[in-house]
Structure formats: structure tokens, C-alpha cells
């Protein structure tokens, strides 16, 4: 008889690492004028999970993030080559409506940027212009549920008509996340969403990210490596415009395969 006892421990379920790729990038290059800012990036980003982009300033991680909702289109000298698909659809196709794309791919920025309007209007604006609500009751429902999903509703329910800019930094950032959610996106891009927040507000946003990954594909750029290790399931390391290494977060932060990744995450960069 086998006398060995099974001591297997149930670990926290590792979410959908093997899930179908939501975003697929093939040989993506970005040029700002003569500057070759992003060099031949190939990556598959799985759906309903958090993928973190890390790397030193100027490494191309934000540039790549901004390719995913074509934010780079707004920069006149910027040129993007290669192919990016979302759920199989080429987002650089001429026939694609960029406004629709940005409804599918929401974005949260480093500094919270609520509109100088009421909390209610901040959330209601997107659904209204995208025609997501047929009447005021539906609109109100979207506002409330978005605030709830962003974990902000309890804190603001008595002052929905107050200005969004009057909230604390952490609350403003969660308001921006609620605003992004309100238009029912498939993907949420976050460009250093916590770098302007204090540790408690950061923890709240991280908690929220963890919760949202059940429904959305989240891509987050962060300078905080511990944050990347905490919130993401996959991590991609960028350096000098190259995607150096991409893989399961646990492996990237414990046994990275590329020397440059190891030097960066252990704080040994030149």
C-alpha cells in the first residue's frame, strides 16, 4: 500500500491564464517621427485577466498600451505598423470606427481626470453619447451599477450631484474607473492608475482591479513592481522599445529567463 499521504494544498485559483487571447499583437512597430519607439512587438493577451506591462521610463510600455485603443492616432508624428486584433478584429482596419473602438477599450490614466461635472454626469456622459440607455431610469441604473462595481457607490450615494472634482484622489480614480465601466467595455487599459494615490487608495484600486478581472480584460502599466506582482496574472517586460519577456507573473518575478528582466526587477539597472 502506498503510505504517502496527500498533502496537496488548494491554492487560490489561477485565473484563465490559458484563456483565449483577447488582444493579439503581431510585429507592432511605433515611430515618433524618426524615433523607433516600439520594435516588433508580438504578444497575446488573454481575456478576463490582468496583464501588467513593466519596464523603465521610455521603454515603450505606455506607447504599446496606447496602440490598443489607438490613442496614438492623436499624435500627428506617430506611425504604427504591424497588426493588432481584438477578438479577432483588426483594430487598424480602415473601416473601423475609432469612437466605437474606444468604447470597447476603456482607459484610466495616471492622474484621475474626472470631468468638471457632477459625479452623476461623469458616469452618465459615456452611456448617453453611445446611446446605451433608452430613458432616464436606465441611465440612472447604469450610473448606480457602475459606481457599485467601482466600489464607490456607498461613499458618494448621498452626493451624486456634487462635483466629481471635489472627491479625494483615490475616489476620483475609482470614479474614472466607474466611468470607464459605464460604457460596458471589453478591455480596460490602465496607465499607472495608482501612482498619484496614497497606499490606502492604492490598495482599494488594486482590490477593485482584482474584482474586475472576472469580467474584463485588463492591461495595466505600472512602475511599481510589487503592484504588478500582486495584481497581474501575466507580466510583460519592455526595455528600449523591445518586449523582452512575457509570461506568467509568478515566473517573471521569481525566475525570469532573460538577464535584463532579472536586473530590472531586482533593481540592478545601469
Amino acid at each position, binding site marked *: 500500500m502506498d503510505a504517502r499521504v496527500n498533502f496537496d494544498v488548494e491554492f487560490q485559483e489561477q485565473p484563465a491564464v490559458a484563456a483565449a487571447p483577447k488582444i493579439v499583437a503581431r510585429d507592432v512597430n511605433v515611430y515618433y517621427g524618426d524615433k523607433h519607439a516600439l520594435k516588433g512587438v508580438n504578444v497575446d493577451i488573454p481575456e478576463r485577466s490582468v496583464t501588467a506591462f513593466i519596464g523603465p521610463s521610455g521603454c515603450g510600455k505606455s506607447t504599446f498600451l496606447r496602440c490598443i485603443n489607438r490613442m496614438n492616432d492623436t499624435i500627428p508624428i506617430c506611425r504604427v505598423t504591424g497588426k493588432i486584433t481584438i477578438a479577432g478584429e483588426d483594430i487598424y482596419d480602415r473601416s473601423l470606427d475609432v469612437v466605437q473602438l474606444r468604447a470597447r477599450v476603456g482607459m484610466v490614466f495616471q492622474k484621475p481626470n474626472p470631468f468638471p461635472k457632477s459625479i452623476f454626469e461623469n458616469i452618465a456622459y459615456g452611456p448617453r453619447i453611445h446611446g446605451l440607455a433608452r430613458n432616464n431610469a436606465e441611465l440612472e441604473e447604469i450610473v448606480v451599477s457602475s459606481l457599485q462595481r467601482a466600489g464607490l457607490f456607498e461613499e458618494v450615494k448621498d452626493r451624486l450631484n456634487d462635483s466629481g472634482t471635489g472627491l479625494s484622489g483615490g475616489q476620483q480614480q475609482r470614479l474614472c474607473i466607474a466611468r470607464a465601466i459605464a460604457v460596458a467595455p471589453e478591455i480596460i487599459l490602465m496607465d499607472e492608475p495608482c501612482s498619484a494615490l496614497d497606499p490606502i487608495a492604492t490598495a482599494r484600486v488594486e482590490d477593485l482591479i482584482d474584482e474586475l478581472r472576472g469580467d474584463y480584460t485588463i492591461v495595466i502599466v505600472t512602475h511599481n513592481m*510589487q503592484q504588478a506582482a500582486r495584481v497581474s496574472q501575466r507580466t510583460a517586460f519592455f526595455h528600449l522599445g523591445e518586449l523582452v519577456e512575457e509570461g506568467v507573473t509568478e515566473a517573471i*518575478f*521569481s*525566475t*525570469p529567463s532573460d538577464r535584463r528582466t532579472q*536586473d530590472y*526587477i531586482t*533593481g*540592478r*539597472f545601469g
Partner: protein
Amino acid sequence: MPQHTVASFDADLKVLDSMIGDMGDGAGRALSGATKALIGRDVALAQHVIGADRAIDTLQHEIEERAVQTIARRQPMAVDLREIVAAMRVANDLERVGDLAKNVAKRVVAIGEQRSPVALAAGLESLGLRVGEQLGAVLKAYRNRDAAGAMAVWEADGAIDALFTSLFRELLTYMMEDPRSIGFCTHLLFCAKNLERVGDHATNIAETAHFVITGKIIATERPKADESIAIDAAMHAPRTS
């Protein structure tokens, strides 16, 4: 490996390494002192080994404290985190080595000046020497981050087990031949077992070194040659007519 951008982080890691070095020296001295005292029945030397153990324990606490502080202050990742966790583990093993050496020394004091049979002394001596070599080699491999050196120590532990097994048989035989030697031989048996355990701690340190360097845990099972558990005492029992 390139330096950290924060130079004081390198300094922290270096201090941890040198503390492990000091602790390894202390544990090595305790082991060789205890072996020497056992072979030569040197009670004074044994007393000295017993007294010196406190310094090893103190170092372990200091290493642990420093490691925890470094983790809190630097939030180390990857190889740095492994280095710090490894320092704690190695300190733990070395503290045990110190205790085992101290226990051998205490038994030397307990059995006093009684002489043991020559063959037995030779067996204990070669076991002690062999274990000392293993400990020295593994600490060197750890210091130099030498994965191959660590693996060599890991693979050689079987020889120590084999030495212990043969001592076990011998002691069993002596005890059966002359029941008056049972007290004395039991002390020697514990001494032999303690030395063999030091070999296991050297193997632990080899595994830790391998983990630091490669980031991987040794996948295969340890080589085991301690067959003393399979020896049936009844087989050795004198026949009753």
C-alpha cells in the same frame, strides 16, 4: 551580477553573507571540536564546545533579524529574495549543527574518560571527519554560489549514511556481547547519530544553495544509504539454549 542601483542593498546582502560565513566557521569549529573531544575523550575540550554554542545561537538570531529587516526595507524580488530566504534557512541549519555538536560534547562529558574499542574509535573518527568535510565543502559552495559544488555535497551524503549504518551494527554487536557496555555504547550511538544528522544539514544547505543559484528545487529524491532502520535487532540477539 551587476550592482544594485541602491548600493546599500548590496551592502545589506554582503553583511548577511558574511554573517553566514561567521556562523559556518563557528559551527565547523564546534563540530571538529566535538569530534576531537569524542575520539580523545577530552572533557575540557568538550566543555569548551558546549560553552561556545551560545555564540552560534546569537548569530542565528541576528541573521534572522537582519533578513526580516532587509525584506521589509527592500521588498526584494527573484534572486535577491531567494538569497535572503536562503540566509535564514542556512542559519537555521547551522544552528542545528551547533546543537548537535554540543550534544556530542555533552555525551563526552557524560561518559568521561572511559576508553572505547579501537575499531569503534576509528569508525567514529572517520564519520566525524567525513561530516566535517561535507560541511566545509557545502559552505564553500554556498559562499561561491557554486551549484555544481553544492550538488557534489548533496550526492555524497550516502557515504555518511553508510558509515553510520556500519557503526550502528558494530555498537549493536558490542552491546550484545557485553550488556555492561550498553550505557556507554548508547551514548556513542547517539554521538554517531548526531554526526550523521550534521551530514543531513549539510545536504539541506546544498539544496538551499542550489535553489538560490538556479531558482529551482532539486527534483530527485535524496540519496539514502542509512540502512540502520532495516537492521533487525533480533537477528543479533544471542541464542537462548
